[in-house]
């Protein structure tokens, strides 16, 4: 309990630091929210008026104080770029899409990588291992955007399994939405699968060399029994950490994949908000991402305690 409390405090300190850093970063880099919205034909007076209206002329600590004050009350303000739109509505519109994408990707990752990783380790040096090692090597080397384009080309334009660009919101038609999201999820999942497979394989192999395994064998256990009862339990611990980071990464929005597949998720919103200097939106998304990462770490810590009794003090 004390442990959890301590971690919660750390969480809040982290959130505070990160939000202040992003806030400061945006006042240091060139670019101006008012100017970005008004474009190059606006007069200096108009820009000044809008800056005044958005409260951009106040000094940094004042602006930060104002922001954190309302953020603590759950109010993230209005978007600079999209008048009449609250930050909350912009994000809550996209969050389900990103979460759905993350869930599907996670399913694909788990379903493919865990069996493949174990098989690779079990038949280490055999053809299945060689093939999987080579293929994962290639997949990891391919940049995400290229993989995305390749998948849209093959599944969208050649096989016509989905229509690129014709994304349907989950609120409109969940089935159609899931069907479309499967392909971007695949693009998100493939590189991660490659990493998890390698990670799991190496983890299992190094565990196999440990002394207790020899003992397990000498007790008369079959290879399968040793693998699933003894090795896997220990080999999975580092993999869980890795998977947690993967989940955090996907939940933060897969910028490139969302772009390539025209999926209106958080990643796309983040990119456009940065280039529009839409600070309230950027701040909120950064806060969300920080939350996700810190929470995932927290969950991993708890899981560790469950999986590995040694961690419990």
């Amino acid at each position, binding site marked *: 309990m004390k442990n959890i409390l301590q971690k919660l405090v750390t969480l809040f300190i982290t959130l505070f630091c990160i939000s202040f850093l992003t806030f400061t970063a945006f006042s240091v*880099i*060139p*670019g*101006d929210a008012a*100017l*970005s*919205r*008004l*474009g*190059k*034909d*606006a*007069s*200096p*007076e*108009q*820009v000044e008026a809008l800056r005044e209206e958005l409260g951009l002329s106040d000094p940094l600590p004042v602006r930060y104080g104002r922001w954190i004050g309302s953020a603590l009350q759950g109010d993230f303000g209005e*978007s600079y*770029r*999209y*008048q*009449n*739109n609250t930050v909350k509505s*912009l994000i809550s*519109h996209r969050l389900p899409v990103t979460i759905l994408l993350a869930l599907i990707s996670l399913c694909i990752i788990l379903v493919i990588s865990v069996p493949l990783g174990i098989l690779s380790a079990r038949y280490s040096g055999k053809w299945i291992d060689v093939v999987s090692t080579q293929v994962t090597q290639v997949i990891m080397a391919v940049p995400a955007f290229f993989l995305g*384009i390749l998948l*849209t*080309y093959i599944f*969208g*334009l050649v096989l016509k399994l989905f*229509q*690129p*660009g*014709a994304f349907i919101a989950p609120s409109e038609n969940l089935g159609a939405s899931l069907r479309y999201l499967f392909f971007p999820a695949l693009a998100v999942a493939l590189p991660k699968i490659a990493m998890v497979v390698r990670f799991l394989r190496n983890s299992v192999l190094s565990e196999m060399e440990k002394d207790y395994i020899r003992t397990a064998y000498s007790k008369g256990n079959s290879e399968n029994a040793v693998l699933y009862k003894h090795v896997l339990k220990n080999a999975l611990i580092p993999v869980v950490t890795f998977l947690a980071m993967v989940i955090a990464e996907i939940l933060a929005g897969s910028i490139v994949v969302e*772009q*390539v*597949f*025209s999926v*209106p998720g958080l990643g*796309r*919103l983040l*990119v*456009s908000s940065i*280039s*529009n*200097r839409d600070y309230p939106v950027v701040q909120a998304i950064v806060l969300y991402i920080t939350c996700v990462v810190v929470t995932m770490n927290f969950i991993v810590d708890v899981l560790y305690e469950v999986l590995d009794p040694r961690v419990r003090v």
Partner: protein
Amino acid sequence: MRKHLLSGITVVLISAALCACGGGKKNETTAASAAQAAPAAAETTAVSAAAETKAPETAETGSNSLSAETPVAGGRVVFGITQDLNSLDPHIDTDAGTRDVVFNLYEGLVKPTPTGDMMPAVASSYEISEDAKVYTFTLRDGIKFHDGTAVTVEDVKYSLDRYAELYKGTSAFSIVESVETPDDKTVVVTLTESNSEFLPNMVVAVIPKSNVDPAGKPIGTGPFKYVNYVPGEKLVVEKFADYWQEGLPHLDEVEFKIVPDVETEFVDLQAGTIDIMKYMTEAQIQALGSNSDYNIVESSMNLVQGMFLSNTYEPLANTKVRQALCYAVNRDEINQFIFGGKSKPAGTHMIHAMGSYYEPATESVYTYDPSKAKELLAEAGYPDGFDLVITVPSSFSQHVDTAQIIVEQLKAVGVNASIQQVEWATWLSDTYRGGNFQATVIGFDGTMTPSDWLKRYTSTASNNFCHYSNEEFDKLFAQAYAEIDMDKKASLYKQCEMILAEDAAAVYIQDPVDLVAVNKKFAGYTSYPTAAEDMSLIYAVN
């Protein structure tokens, strides 16, 4: 290559013919109604002069060469746009990308035609006094807003006043003395001084006075009415059944789909998700192949693309140096390399589409001549060249590509140029506003008012970001601006343009070609010389 070119030309001819066809049918096309309206406005020297001199660019061929494709009523078009909309409030001055789209929702007392003239819209006719100080508009009978209410002169006055309040400091509305409504059919706009080029400013959208939220709930008189807008995703509009132009629009619904990534947009086009895509590259057109489902319409971006030079950077304050750069840059090579030679060369800060206001002689002031460039540099005291940083906004690939070619060309004359790519927001604040640059490659758009294009070169203009100053130019510009006689005005502006060319105010490169892919299921795509994507003329073919 040649085959592509030929098919491209055919497509242009076909689409031109289609536009013309539309006029022949019962549909009252924009061009036709403009012609009808001109005589209605008596004593309107301004209108007729403009109409005569601006040669129609698209609707030249009038033959019915495409009887096979018959228009079908209804249908839904998805139009791809790479830039999100800035605001749906028509009085918030925004970027050309937004104006392109909201053109379909709103109309002013007058609206532009594809040939760049002004045709009556919310007004059914207008009159301009001899001294070009009083503009009198007659409200169109029975014209309605999207919500079904009738447009009143109060709405017109409200709209003009609202716009004037927002932009009186910077726009032509600074010379509006009053907007009056003597009766319920007439709106009189009085100016503080004579201005014969004021009419295009009357495209300011007429919106209902009763609407308290024009950005969130847009209501206008345009051919399409607002359905919904999802930030970063799409704007959907539907046919306005009570639109005043009989037979328009043809389509039932239009979706403007926001796809920020050009490659993704191209995939969406191939997949049939998007029906119309602008700014196609040569490579994309070749990728579509000959048996494609798309017609390629060639039009113009209506930009003055150039390398703009800061006079605060010492070497560039010297006219000879600027002229040397003009000789050193090979415009044909840039055009050939990036646009397959289809762009129109530029020699001054004015586009071809401005017709009688455009001085074609400016194009040939400089020819590619590296040795002449070296000579001029030596005369100016830079025999070994100088360092030059060219700032380019990274999101505009055509400007980045252009800058890269320029760097190589300048090397040949000893100028050591390098490229600094910046984000668009940085370009706006640092380069454009802050004047913190030596040279920058960018394109400028404008309105149908000639002074809009040239004013930025006057010494005191707030948007004179090059800090260019030329007394003779200032004098001629002031004269041209005040001139009432349209012929004299045009000739004075042309002299201004010539000064910019000869004085090498910037290295003017081109008005880039705009290649638009249109799904063969649709026809009637018409390009405008101003920011307008008119969806009302598009129709489905069977």
